[in-house]
């Protein structure tokens, strides 16, 4: 594990011994009949699965942190814990300041509502007021740059347009912490540039960014710290270059084994 960058400023995210347990049930009794028949036969066909195991780390203000790891390693669970979607099974998560969770593309968009209506709804869901959202509406529309589609139901949007609007809403509300979960893969090159411009602005404004991505070039370019998570445990935490190296070794165990 490489040495940590010295924390600049105060801590905004503190993850303390957090474990997230999921009950994986092979056949969850979805109806009462199944429940009764299971109870009668004294069956319990589940096991506990720890998506995040005893994770601890601090994120100081203004740091851009990438969270990397294989599919199913627990990255998204970790983000959801930080965003407050999950309450940890044990341990504690402390977050200071407003947080804009882009956990998934347009989470909170309703397909029947127009882009404009969704801007308001999405802002309210993130805890902003109607007034906040009306003030920012034009800026969001300008940034998303989807033309007259703004007044069409979002179910008619392409996935790229969806992503643009989602990103515009989440960043225009000016949160202290931005959580980005693999959302940037969808937009075209021009929009990606715009997004990363904005991420740079965020960093310059001293804001904290958590980025989940599989694009290692983005990690090196935009983040000053990377956390590698595998099977729910944090196995590396430090400068991106070194953490990525660890990750690359992890992905090709046969290379390591040949030593």
């Amino acid at each position, binding site marked *: 594990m490489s040495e940590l960058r010295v924390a600049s400023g105060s801590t905004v995210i503190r993850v303390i011994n957090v474990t997230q347990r*999921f*009950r994986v049930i092979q056949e969850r*009794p*979805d*109806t*009462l*009949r199944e*429940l009764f028949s299971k109870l009668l036969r004294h069956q319990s066909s589940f096991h506990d699965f720890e998506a995040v195991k005893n994770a601890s780390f601090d994120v100081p203000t203004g740091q851009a942190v990438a969270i990397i790891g294989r599919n199913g390693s627990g990255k998204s669970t970790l983000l*959801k814990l930080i*965003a*407050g*979607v*999950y*309450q940890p099974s044990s341990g504690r998560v402390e977050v200071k300041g407003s947080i804009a*969770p882009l*956990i*998934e593309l347009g*989470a*909170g968009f*309703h397909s*029947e*509502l127009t882009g404009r*209506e969704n801007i*308001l*709804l999405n802002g*309210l*869901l*993130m*805890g902003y*007021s*109607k007034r906040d959202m009306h003030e920012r509406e034009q800026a969001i529309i300008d940034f998303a740059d989807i033309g007259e589609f703004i007044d069409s139901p979002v179910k008619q949007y392409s996935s790229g347009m969806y992503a643009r609007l989602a990103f515009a809403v989440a960043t225009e509300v000016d949160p202290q912490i931005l959580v980005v979960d693999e959302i940037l893969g969808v937009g075209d090159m021009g929009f990606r540039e715009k997004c990363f411009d904005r991420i740079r602005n965020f960093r310059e404004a001293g804001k904290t960014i958590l980025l989940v991505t599989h694009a290692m070039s983005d990690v090196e370019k935009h983040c000053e710290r990377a956390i590698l998570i595998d099977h729910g445990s944090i196995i590396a935490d430090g400068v991106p270059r070194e953490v990525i190296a660890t990750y690359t070794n992890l992905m090709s165990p046969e290379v390591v084994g040949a030593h």
Partner: protein
Amino acid sequence: MTQLIRDSYRYRELIWALALKELKVRYKRSVLGFMWALLNPAFMMLVLTLVFSTIMRFNIPHYAIFLLSVLLPWTFFSQSLSYGSEAIVSNGDLIKKVAVPKLVFPMAALVSNIINLLLSLIPLALLVPLMRHPFYWTWLYLPVPLLALAIFTLGAIFFFAAANVFYRDVSHILQVLLSAWFYITPIIYPLDAIPAKYQWIFKLNPIIYVINGFRLSVYYGQLPKAPSIIASFVCAFISLLIGFALFKKYQNSFVFYV
């Protein structure tokens, strides 16, 4: 309970937006749109009035008004529960991705149905003079039973919305329960129609007191007696206490089951 009041106030704009969204989606792609909230009860009244003034005659004058004065609140109650019991399940995608207090969804279900109920009172108010039934000043009393009914309904929504997350049978059981409940509640008949010695059984029905308030003020032009008013609010708050306690206890687990 303070959590309920605090979060409802803090997220009032979200609750309102979600309620409007529900109505918007309900009436989307219909030419008359929002008008259906008025037309639906109006047509129902038309049918009921025709049926009960020509085909089936009761000894009750202006039977349509007698019926509608409590059928409209009942429809509110049963529709709120049907929609509300799905409030968490149908917003599962949202709950899995955004950290938002779960109680906004049952609250929004309640609010959207209150809007519907208030709209449906308009055609009733038009029907009263049309049938030459007196327009009593006791209409002004309606906000009181409305409040009791809203609290009672909210508690029931919390209860069924939470239970439905874990066992989807709940929404089916609810439908059976509602149709049985409809017939044991004096809606299509007056309470006097029940033999006196069985009336105490019917008085165990927690919704009967609030229903009574609606019928008295709209049809009879009277105010309910104090014990009946107190009983209606006691039932309402018991419902809310039980429903919200259950909801609160399990709300952090919803995200794993939706």
